């Protein structure tokens, strides 16, 4: 058995030894140990190096507030976690734990030179040291600081673990499974409420785990705990351990991070590493207890200097004696019990040093009975020891005068500066705090949430008081939810109540400027730093915090905030409540990004929408691109083809034979009802009244500001029914906008909107031979120029499938769009591919679609427009029904700025060398010789190589562009300036002769 393990003590299992590695060496602990308790059982106090000065540090606490003992835990590649608190990490066989912030090794760290140069690193040193010269900041200071800064090292491999999340709804959430939380949960559950009880530790019990001497309701504390947990289980209470309430959000939503596998040697199948619960509770009971404060004196950070309460936890919960020869240094009664218990466990307590002149006589009597030396009214001014404390120097203090010192040898120094309620979650609720002068601490006051605090969190002390308070609060919560409940009285024997006093720095006989009395261990902030900040003009506690970085480390100042406040208030000469506390923010303890991401990583990162035809495109070797949430086939390369070659071939096939395109992602909205045409008249710029059923029209949608929002072809199927199409990316937005106007501006209209985007698979067929393909397949409509002219729509069958057939074109060629019920899309695609093969049918993707529409000057909303483009700017004045009394955007179009000269207007651009392809987004200037910064008059919105035009083409928005036809503009690029001529937007078949349908039997 390890040297410092106390037989018969603790809840670890001595029959189940566990070997793990620390700092490269094997260490043996027991099942149930944390890394910290196992190391302490082996006499190892040195666990890490501090962040700034690289000072040797040991565990100072036993819980999640631990600032010093940060380790990197590893479980093979990618499974490495920096900044793990050794006090929380349970050991398992094979665990690899490495200390941080030290090189080449923990016991000899080169970075410790910072410690000797500490005078340079005082408060605000970043601001002072690196002020000048300015140019040094970017080149020298910042890179060096960045390289040296940061806690731990994050892994560079991908994390192979999985993470999960769940929602949970409950009547009552109790945070903290100590006596108050257990009693609250029991009372609320007995009242018939759904209760969730969470605790961040591996087992429930809280302080009861460290106080086995107590007897509750006649049972030893641990037996009572076992029975109580069984009772809670029987009542259906969900008890979740290893679960940290990380944040308290609006209306009682609590984030809970549950750690599921970090304590296991073997990773179970189908089990995430962590799960984030988003829990909503009707009522919350915060029973998070209190945190012990360190005392502030020179050398209070040496390994072996630890909180007395932590020593108690190591002894009682883990069966570990943290030293053989402890000195207790305290201003609070509670630490005396650590002395007594350690003495009883075989240690030889060198002294109890109490800063108070007259500690309770009962305690003094007990010390005397055990033969422990007591020094009352004493201070500590220094410790010695390099990697472990070896002695402490103590002095009597009388009437403010520090007397002669005495060096007391010790192998650990157990301190207590009293206790601070853990109010972090309460503070997340924007709860107000009230200063309690007696306890020298803040206590919870009011909160806007349905939340109560129970137990030590509101300053109560001892098991009896917290049990009673928990039960009372449980009953209070039950009553507020309409349930009667009674809080049972639980007699407690062996309770340890007590009180104490509070200090700033302990009195010293040395120059305060030389004292290294740490307040914030993790950020290496000393009392001297805080006083310096005040001397240098910081008045607000928030400024003091940022100037010194006190409380800004990953522990968020759990141990340092109150000491920091007391010292700052003293330096400012103002009372603590006048100075105020800094803000606590979620998360309560550091939380992995994985827990926040949950399931949303890898292939599940976000939704990828695929059309019904997508699998056929994939089988055909399509290259895809994301468009909104959709993935769309961009082009269909044949072996050896790059994108440009494939796109050119697809365009050529479409312009000479038939191109087939999956247009299913187009947004579709069915507008139905007797007022459908009135609604369309009000929404779209175009007039709809005279559009006959069976005909289509290009529709343009504006915002009321007059700018283009969306466009698409709209077919009238019946007097009361329109088939509206929108852009792919605009579908949801347009439907929302339409619903908004319909529901809130025109609720009198009898018309309804239904999204049919996914009802239909839409296949666009374009090209001179398209009629040849479709005529044998279409029934119910005659495909002639007379019977079914351009911009017609009909309900019919295509290849035997019920279809809505549109005669439209987005390429300038004769075009159809066949809509069939979505699940039939693949069958239709295959049927058309087979029937079209002899005619030269070629599938094309979005890239060829973009090229061909640009050749015709058809805009893409969102590419050629950017939310500041009017119909006139885009050359679409013809689509605006000026005779209509109103439509969305009509008044907007008359705004002065929208009619002013010099607006950016959509034009064509042809590079003057006839070969250069412009870059989309490139800026345009009129005079290339002007000095920089040049006046930019527009930008390129679309640019493609066009075989049909025989040269690269582009569209651009240019100031006053419509009046600049034939002018030369310039596009400055990093390596040269390109000259281009402004033209119209149509580069191919300006007379639209190719839209015509060849007569049946005629050659195309």
């Amino acid at each position, binding site marked *: 058995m390890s040297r410092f393990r106390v037989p018969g003590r603790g809840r670890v299992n001595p029959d189940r030894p566990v070997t793990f590695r620390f700092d490269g060496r094997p260490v043996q602990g027991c099942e149930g140990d944390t890394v910290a308790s196992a190391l302490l059982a082996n006499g190892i106090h040195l666990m890490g190096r501090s962040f700034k000065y690289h000072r040797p540090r040991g565990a100072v606490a036993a819980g999640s507030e631990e600032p010093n003992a940060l380790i990197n835990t590893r479980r093979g590649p990618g499974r490495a976690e920096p900044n793990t608190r050794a006090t929380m990490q349970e050991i398992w066989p094979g665990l690899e734990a490495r200390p941080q912030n030290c090189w080449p090794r923990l016991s000899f760290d080169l970075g410790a030179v910072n410690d000797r140069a500490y005078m340079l690193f005082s408060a605000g040193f970043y601001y002072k040291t690196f002020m000048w010269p300015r140019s040094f900041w970017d080149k020298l200071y910042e890179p060096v600081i960045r390289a040296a800064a940061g806690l731990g090292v994050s892994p560079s491999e991908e994390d192979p673990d999985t993470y*999960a*999340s*769940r*929602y*949970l*709804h409950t009547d009552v959430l109790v945070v903290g499974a100590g006596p108050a939380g257990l009693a609250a949960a029991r009372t609320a559950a007995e009242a018939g409420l759904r209760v969730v009880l969470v605790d961040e530790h591996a087992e429930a019990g809280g302080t009861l785990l460290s106080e086995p001497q107590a007897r509750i309701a006649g049972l030893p504390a641990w037996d009572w705990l076992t029975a109580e947990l069984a009772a809670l289980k029987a009542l259906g209470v969900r008890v979740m351990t290893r679960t940290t309430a990380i944040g308290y959000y609006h209306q009682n939503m609590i984030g809970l991070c549950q750690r599921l596998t970090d304590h296991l040697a073997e990773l*179970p*199948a*189908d*089990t*995430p590493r962590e799960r984030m619960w*988003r829990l*909503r509770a009707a009522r919350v009971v915060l029973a998070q207890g209190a945190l012990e404060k360190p005392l502030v004196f020179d050398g209070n950070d040496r390994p072996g200097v630890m909180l007395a309460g932590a020593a108690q936890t190591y002894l009682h919960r883990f069966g570990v004696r943290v030293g053989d020869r402890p000195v207790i240094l305290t201003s609070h009664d509670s630490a005396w019990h650590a002395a007594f218990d350690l003495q009883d466990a075989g240690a030889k307590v060198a002294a109890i040093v109490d800063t108070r002149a007259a500690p309770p006589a009962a305690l003094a009597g007990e010390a005397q009975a055990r033969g422990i030396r007591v020094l009352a009214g004493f201070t500590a001014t220094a410790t010695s020891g390099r990697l472990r404390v070896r002695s402490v120097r103590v002095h009597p203090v009388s009437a403010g005068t520090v007397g002669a010192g005495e060096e007391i040898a010790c192998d650990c120094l157990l301190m207590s500066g009293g206790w601070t309620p853990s109010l972090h979650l309460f503070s997340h609720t924007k709860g107000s705090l009230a200063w309690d002068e007696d306890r020298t601490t803040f206590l919870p006051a009011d909160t806007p949430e349905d939340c109560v605090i129970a137990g030590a969190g509101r300053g109560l002390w001892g098991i009896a008081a917290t049990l009673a308070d928990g039960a009372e609060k449980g009953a209070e919560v039950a009553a507020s939810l309409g349930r009667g409940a009674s809080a049972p009285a639980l007699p407690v024997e062996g309770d340890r109540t007590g009180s104490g006093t509070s200090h700033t720095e302990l009195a010293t006989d040395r120059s305060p400027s030389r004292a290294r009395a740490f307040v914030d261990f993790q950020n290496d902030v000393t009392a001297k730093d805080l006083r310096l900040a005040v001397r240098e003009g910081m008045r607000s506690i928030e400024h003091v915090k940022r100037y010194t970085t006190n409380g800004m480390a990953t522990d968020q100042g759990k141990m340092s905030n109150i000491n920091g406040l007391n010292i700052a208030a003293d330096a400012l000469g103002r009372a603590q409540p006048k100075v105020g506390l800094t803000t606590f923010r979620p998360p309560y303890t550091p939380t992995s990004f994985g827990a926040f991401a949950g*399931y949303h990583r890898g*292939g*599940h990162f976000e*939704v*990828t*929408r*695929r*059309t*019904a035809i997508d699998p056929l495109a994939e089988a055909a070797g399509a290259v895809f691109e994301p468009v909104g*949430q*959709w993935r769309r086939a961009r082009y269909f390369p044949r072996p050896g083809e790059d994108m440009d070659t494939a796109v050119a071939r697809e365009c050529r096939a479409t312009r000479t034979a038939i191109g087939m395109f999956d247009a299913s992602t187009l947004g579709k909205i*069915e507008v*139905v*009802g*007797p*007022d459908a045409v009135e609604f369309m008249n009000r929404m779209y710029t175009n007039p709809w009244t005279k559009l006959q059923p069976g005909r289509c029209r290009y529709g343009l949608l504006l915002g009321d500001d007059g700018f283009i929002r969306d466009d698409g072809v709209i077919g009238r199927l019946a007097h*009361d029914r329109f088939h509206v199409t929108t852009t792919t990316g605009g579908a949801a937005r347009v439907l929302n906008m339409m619903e908004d106007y319909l529901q809130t501006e025109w609720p009198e209209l*009898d*018309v*309804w909107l*239904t*999204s*049919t*985007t*996914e*009802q*239909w*698979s839409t296949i666009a067929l374009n090209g001179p031979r398209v009629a040849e393909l479709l005529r044998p397949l279409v029934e119910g409509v005659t495909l002639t120029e007379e019977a079914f002219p351009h911009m017609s729509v009909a309900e019919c069958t295509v290849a035997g499938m019920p279809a809505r057939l549109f005669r439209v074109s987005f390429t300038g060629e004769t075009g159809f769009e066949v809509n069939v*019920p*979505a*699940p*039939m899309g693949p069958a239709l695609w295959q049927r058309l591919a087979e029937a079209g093969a002899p005619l030269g049918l070629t599938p094309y993707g979005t890239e060829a679609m973009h090229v061909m529409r640009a050749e015709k000057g058809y805009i893409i909303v969102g590419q050629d427009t950017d939310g500041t483009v009017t119909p006139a700017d885009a050359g679409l004045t013809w689509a605006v029904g000026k005779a209509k009394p109103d439509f969305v955007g009509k008044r907007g179009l008359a705004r002065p700025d929208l009619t002013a000269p010099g607006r950016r207007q959509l034009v064509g651009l042809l590079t003057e060398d006839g070969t250069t392809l412009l870059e989309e987004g490139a800026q345009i200037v009129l005079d290339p010789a002007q000095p920089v910064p040049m006046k930019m008059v527009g930008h390129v919105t679309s640019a493609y190589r066009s075989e049909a035009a025989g040269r690269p083409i582009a569209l651009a928005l240019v100031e006053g562009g419509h009046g600049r036809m034939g002018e030369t503009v310039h596009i400055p690029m990093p390596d040269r300036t390109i000259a281009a001529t402004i033209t119209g937007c149509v580069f191919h078949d300006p007379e639209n002769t190719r839209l015509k349908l060849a007569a049946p039997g005629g050659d195309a």
Partner: protein
Amino acid sequence: MTPDLSAPGPLAESAAAKLSLAVPCARLSLRARGAAVAPLSAALGLTLPERIGTRASTAAGDTEALRLGPDEWVLHATPAALPGLLAACAALSPEHPHSAVDISGRELTLVLEGPRAAELLTLGMPRDPDSIAPGEGRRTLFDGVSVVLWREADTRFRMDIWHSFAPHLASLLATGCAELAAETA
């Protein structure tokens, strides 16, 4: 883990829950308000339910309606019943203004059943599953996607999903089936 949604049948199964793809059915989005509702009820052979979230069926059981909004119902029917439903609605125009749109092709339905089916929903549904009583239904959110949920029994749900979102949601539900079972073990 993306289940194959090409044919109806089981997709994932564990001791905790089973996920399967339902046989396709006919679906109708029906919109109407005020005085038009009663004639529609008569024409469809069921009483269109009044409270959002409640359901009603025809006597023959071949059509079921769920109220989704103040003027909105979704109807599930056997494919054979659909033409009759559409015709019955069409016959009421224009005297009784309404909108009936065939959305059979828009969606598919996943079936979640098993002892922990309700918990399976909590992987992605922010609202409390207990707030939807057996025999009711709601449009709600699952993993950021709008779905319509029908609670058939304590331990059985149907979830209507637009086709393009279904693989994403089915993948999470399948993950959940395994995760919940591992938790039980």
